């Protein structure tokens, strides 16, 4: 079992912004070097890499650019925002099983200054997109708004509920100098007055479009004890692809509101020594506000339909994808590490456990992190 056998020993990131100088490759390399420096580990010691299939920089380029050692493990995880905890989890599995000694996971993206992915889908569409895009359901926000409207209808959730989520996450970004929305407060009235993007979702239900990169370094828990930073243990990890799921347009099964978190959660908790009631702080994938209530419900923090009112655990304390940076959820992982080091700008006093989740609405993944005793 993976439990507590590996640790995140280093975290690194570039600056975040609408436009950040440098290629995705250069940003990836900067973030990885920053994470290695944070851990106090030389690049030549790295022998494992894990990344997203959507990453534009391959292992060969990273390794020869920053002088990594001979690699004995390299892997990728698919499904965009669903991959984040997965790449970290696979890196941890590699270290725990002896396939690698020092593994790095990263994500680099120029979404702020680059093209929007949905706008590149021209021409004749294959299945399954041919059953949604021709009708004008074009963007991820449209696909999630369809589920959000149904959720609001079934459970009585309101725009004000979603607005409170956006405002809460923004308030955390306002305390985080690295956040794109640092210094830009938002009220519920601001939220309610914002322009529509896909009704029932408005501008502030959407994550940012960000340039930036992040990385983490994973070593054995034993090695981590002797390194520069307080070790943050990888307590449990799971992926989740529910039966009869369809990525993003998950409208074609018995109950489309039972998303990937409902498949990921049992596998996560069965390998953990604690449960939802013991989680001190959470970093929930927030490309869109409705994913937060769906995640609270999926991971067992409240009952179905109760997620929009749930406020029992502090969440997205760096500002998340909504207000810090949208780098396919990787900043949620590094913020989880900061909370357990005690260095978050919205520190939860005494936090010793953290749940981090990846994309809800796509095949997903999640991590439980724990402060070393």
């Amino acid at each position, binding site marked *: 079992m993976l439990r507590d056998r590996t640790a995140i020993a280093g975290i690194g990131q570039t600056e975040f912004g609408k436009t950040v100088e440098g290629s995705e490759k250069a940003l990836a390399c900067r973030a990885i070097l920053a994470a290695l420096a944070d851990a106090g580990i030389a690049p030549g010691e790295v022998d494992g890499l894990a990344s997203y299939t959507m990453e534009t920089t391959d292992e060969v380029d990273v390794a020869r650019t920053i002088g990594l050692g001979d690699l004995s493990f390299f892997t990728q995880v698919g499904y965009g925002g669903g991959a984040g905890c997965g790449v970290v989890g696979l890196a941890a599995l590699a270290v725990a099983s002896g396939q690698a000694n020092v593994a790095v996971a990263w994500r680099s993206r120029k979404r702020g200054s680059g093209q*929007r992915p949905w*706008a590149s*889908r*021209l*021409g*004749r*569409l*294959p*299945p*399954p997109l*041919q*059953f*949604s*895009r*021709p*009708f*004008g*359901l*074009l*963007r991820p926000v*449209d696909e999630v*708004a*369809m*589920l959000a*409207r*149904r959720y609001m*209808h079934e459970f009585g959730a309101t725009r004000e509920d979603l607005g409170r989520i956006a405002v809460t996450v923004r308030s955390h970004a306002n305390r985080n100098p690295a956040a794109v929305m640092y210094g830009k407060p938002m009220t519920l009235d601001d939220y309610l007055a914002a*322009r*529509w*993007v*896909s*009704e*029932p*979702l408005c501008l502030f239900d959407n994550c940012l479009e960000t340039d930036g990169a992040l990385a983490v370094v994973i070593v054995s828990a034993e090695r981590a004890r002797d390194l520069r930073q307080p070790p943050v243990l990888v307590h449990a990890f799971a992926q989740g692809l529910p*039966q*009869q799921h*369809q990525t993003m*347009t998950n*409208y*074609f*099964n*018995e109950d*489309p509101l039972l998303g990937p978190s409902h498949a990921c959660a049992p596998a996560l908790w069965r390998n953990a020594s604690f449960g939802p009631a013991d989680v001190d702080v959470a970093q929930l994938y927030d490309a869109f506000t409705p994913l937060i209530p769906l995640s609270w419900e999926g991971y067992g923090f409240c009952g179905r339909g109760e997620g929009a009112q749930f406020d029992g655990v502090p969440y997205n304390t760096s500002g998340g994808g909504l207000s810090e940076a949208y780098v396919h959820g990787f900043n949620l992982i590094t913020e989880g590490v900061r909370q357990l080091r005690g260095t978050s700008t919205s520190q939860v006093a005494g936090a010793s456990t953290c749940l981090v989740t990846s994309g809800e609405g796509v095949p997903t993944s999640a991590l439980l992190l724990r402060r070393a005793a």
Partner: protein
Amino acid sequence: MSDSGLLLPEFDEEAAPFWTAAMGGSLVVQRCDGCGRLRFPPRPACPWCQSFEFSWPAVSGRATVWSFVVPHPPLLPAYAELAPYNVVVVALEEDPTIRMVGNLVASADAPINSVDPATIEIGMPVQVVFQRVAEDVTLPRWVRA
């Protein structure tokens, strides 16, 4: 993409019967010959009985609105011109877990922005209509029943 800039389906082996039937004014859904269960979107085997045998019967075209959205720009140019428009997901009368994405329109030849979104409600009964959008493509859309 059509001349109008709207996105269109390609006709691959799995889904061509659906689009060919739509050209002829018929809504068809894949049905397993082994267990009789309907499935959509199409795929080569039945996930419930694993049979690779299937047929494409016509369904009634009666459905109810399961959910809907109203997209606003930024959108691809051809869609931005029509925005705000509606996109609905409807649940078929024959099996409410068979759902299809489409648009609610005022009549069989009306555009996707022809219905006031404020008048759309979840649960509303609808009926399929067919709109030719390119020489070789007809899309199923929906009107109030």
